[in-house]
Structures are given as structure tokens and as C-alpha cells.
């Protein structure tokens, strides 16, 4: 579904992605973790072309990202992306946020899109917030709207870029619960997060990155109980301590 083959990327002189090779199967849930600055956000942003890659191949849903022949707008419509900072449209209500892309990109009738949007917002526990503006919602609620916004496009893949990092602690679980339910429905997911509880629960694989490269990857069970490298051990001891 998503395949990196020898992908490299530089920011100026900084080599931020080093020879990444990674393959994600349909219905697979992969958690990417690693210290800050390890390139994990950059990696996930490459998948829908928010970042461009320098060399190597990146094939998503059978199409080559960055190839002039690939219509990125069409490809992005198939990929949901959840941002750390939510990025809800502040001038639109929760329901309008959810239905904007279905109406304009998928060309679905407004009434159909709104029905689907209401259903999804209800599913993420926001049945009473259809007409609320983002500024009237808590962080956790905003992030759930953002997830519903992606789901309303009926995407084939969902990408999550540190979806709970900007949240107050008491709001993290409400967002994770929604993500777990999405995973359990068989969505292909790539999730950058440090929430190891989430990884244990639904991830098939954990990928550990450091300094722009993939250091190790394995099942959550293996990774947490028997980390193979010093760097992953050091990382785990830091995040599990608190």
C-alpha cells in the first residue's frame, strides 16, 4: 500500500531522511517512533507529498509520489492526514469542516455529505457539536473533528502526525479511543506517536527512527520487551519513565 525504496531527503545540507526502505501492507497499522528531530514527521509528510523526496521511489496506492504523471490532488483525496496542531478551518463549523472536501473534491451532494458528516461526528462522540466552531471546542474535540474530517473522504490510508502531542493529558485518551476504533475497522494506518499503549493495542509493527534512518522495526511485543539497539533502549527508557 505504501512503499519506500531507498528514499533520501535533504533540508539544505541536513540529511533528514537516510536511505529509507519500508513497506506497509493494506490493513496494516504501523507506529513510527523516535526522538525529536529523527525525521519521523518528515517521513510521514512525504507519503502525501507535503514534503518532496530527493531520490529513491515512494509508491502509494500503486502511484509514484512526485512523478509528474501522478495527479497528487487525486492521490491526496485517498489519504487522510491528521496534524499535530489539528489545522481545522477556523471559519467553518465542525460539520462544515468535515463536509468541505467531500462536497468540493468528491462532488458529493451537500445533503448526502452532511448526513455522512453527522454520522461520523456522532461516531467520534461529537453529536452535540455539529455547529460549533473550532474555537469553541477543546483540543481533544478539535482533533476528533479532524479525524472525522479525514474519514468522511472514505480514505484508503490514514496518516497521523503526532496526533496527541498538542493535547492536555486528560484529552489524550478520547482521541486514542477513536484511533483504535478506526484501526479495528481495518484501515491502513501510519502513526507517528509516542503513545506506546496505543502501539501495543493495535499496531502490527513499530518502526524506530533516529537521525533520519530506520534503526529497527518489529512487533510491539518484541520492540518493547527486547529492544535490539542501544539507541532504542535509551529512547524507551526515557519515554517509559514518566
Amino acid at each position, binding site marked *: 500500500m505504501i512503499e519506500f525504496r531507498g528514499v533520501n531527503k535533504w533540508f539544505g545540507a541536513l540529511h533528514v531522511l537516510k536511505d529509507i526502505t519500508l513497506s506497509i501492507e493494506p490493513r496494516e497499522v504501523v507506529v513510527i517512533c523516535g526522538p525529536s528531530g529523527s525525521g519521523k514527521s518528515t517521513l510521514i509528510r512525504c507519503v502525501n507529498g507535503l514534503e518532496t523526496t530527493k531520490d529513491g521511489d515512494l509508491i502509494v496506492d500503486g502511484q509514484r509520489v512526485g512523478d509528474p504523471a501522478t495527479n497528487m490532488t*487525486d492521490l*491526496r483525496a485517498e489519504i*487522510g492526514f491528521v496534524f499535530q496542531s489539528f489545522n481545522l*478551518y477556523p471559519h467553518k463549523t465542525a460539520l462544515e469542516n468535515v463536509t468541505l472536501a467531500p462536497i468540493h473534491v468528491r462532488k458529493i451532494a451537500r445533503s448526502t455529505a452532511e448526513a455522512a458528516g453527522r454520522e461520523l461526528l456522532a461516531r467520534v462522540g461529537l453529536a452535540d457539536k455539529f455547529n460549533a466552531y473550532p474555537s469553541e471546542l477543546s483540543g481533544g474535540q478539535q482533533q476528533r473533528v479532524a479525524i472525522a*474530517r479525514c474519514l468522511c473522504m472514505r480514505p484508503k490510508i490514514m496518516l497521523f502526525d503526532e496526533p496527541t502531542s498538542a493535547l492536555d493529558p486528560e484529552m489524550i485518551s478520547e482521541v486514542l479511543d477513536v484511533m483504535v476504533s478506526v484501526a479495528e475497522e481495518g484501515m491502513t494506518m501510519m502513526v507517528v506517536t509516542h503513545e506506546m499503549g496505543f502501539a501495543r493495542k493495535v499496531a502490527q509493527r513499530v518502526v524506530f527512527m533516529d537521525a533520519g534512518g530506520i534503526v529497527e522495526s518489529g512487533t510491539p511485543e518484541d520492540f518493547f520487551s527486547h529492544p535490539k539497539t542501544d539507541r532504542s533502549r535509551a529512547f524507551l527508557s526515557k519515554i517509559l519513565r514518566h
Partner: protein
Amino acid sequence: MIWQQFQGLIGSYPLALRGLGMTVALSLISLVLGTLIGFALGIVRTGSNQLISRVIGAWVDLIRGTPFLVQIFLIFFILPELGIELDAFTAGIIALSNLAACFICEIVAAGIRAVPNGQVEAALASGLSRRQRIQQVVLPQAMRMSLPPLVGQYVLLIKDSSVVSAIGLTDLTRVGWLVVQRVPNGLLVFAIVGVGYFIVCYPLILLARKLERRMGTAHGEVQL
């Protein structure tokens, strides 16, 4: 003598109305034209075409760097030499619309640039086309940010319209100038002219302040 002056002023009442009408007509037409052109220029200015963006930037700089009076003289005296016949009213409209367009272009461009990058990324990520991104996501937010400075700019432009009296257009200021030749009381005459502008401009100033306050400045006013 005061009584005579008063009668003189009463007698100028129709002229004053005409002047006010001219100021309002000139401002209204120019502001509508200037806003439309300014928005278009602002969108193109922030677009991907570097060359067009530079050309617009250079033109805006030329207009912002020279006095409006000089611009009016240039348009009024030079366009006829290029074979374009125009009366003072048309010259005034052209000059004022151009001025409005340039300032509004910069306001709109600043508003567009102030829309957070994450908003564009969110729109990109959900597959919106460039046109849809601008229409649905960027412009509505840019508009909201541009509104207070836009209203403030309208006040400046209405006041700038007084400068067209220099090419003989009978606007409110010109009427004051004409009346003061007959009724030699400059304080009174131009105080009344001032009241005329005040009635038009002050509500807009209050509106701009209200909009600015409603934008919710992040930090409250400081009690010193």
C-alpha cells in the same frame, strides 16, 4: 457683518450639497473599483508567478512612493498628450481607483500571507485544488484579517478624494475654496467642510475600531 456672512453661507447651501454629492460619488465609485482590482491584484501578487508578482510590487511601490497630488497631475495632464481625452471627473476616478487598488492589494496580500501554513497543508492533504484552496480556505480567513485595515484604508481614500479639487473638480473641499472667496471667514467655512467629511468618515473609523477589537487582540489592554 456676521449676519451677512451667515446669509452668504445659507446661499451656498445648494453648492455645498453638490460638493458633498461629488465627494460621495467619487469615493464610492473609486472604492468599489479599487476594491475589486485590489483583491485581484492581491491574489495574483501572492501567487506562484514571480514575474507578475514583481511587476505588481514595483507598481504598488511607485504609487505608494509618490504624492497623490502628483499622480493626479500626471494622469490629468499627460493622458491627453497620449491621445486619451478625459475630463476631470474621469481623471479623478482613475487616479483614486488606482491608489485604492494599490493599497488594497497590499492589505489583501498581507492577509493571505498571514493565513497559517497548516491551513494550506490541511487543504492540500484533503485533495482540494489550488482554486478550491484559495476560495474555501485561504480567502475567507484572509478576508477576516484584512477587514479592519480595509475599512481604515477606505477612510484614508475618502479623505484623499479632497485632493482632486486641485484639478478643478467641484467636490466638498473645492466648494469650501469657492465659498471662502465670497464669504471671507475661513474658520467657519472650512469648519463646515470638515463637518461634512466627519459625517462620512467618523462612522467608518468607529467601525474599523470595532472590527479591530472584535478580532480579539491576543493580549488585553494594559492598565498602566
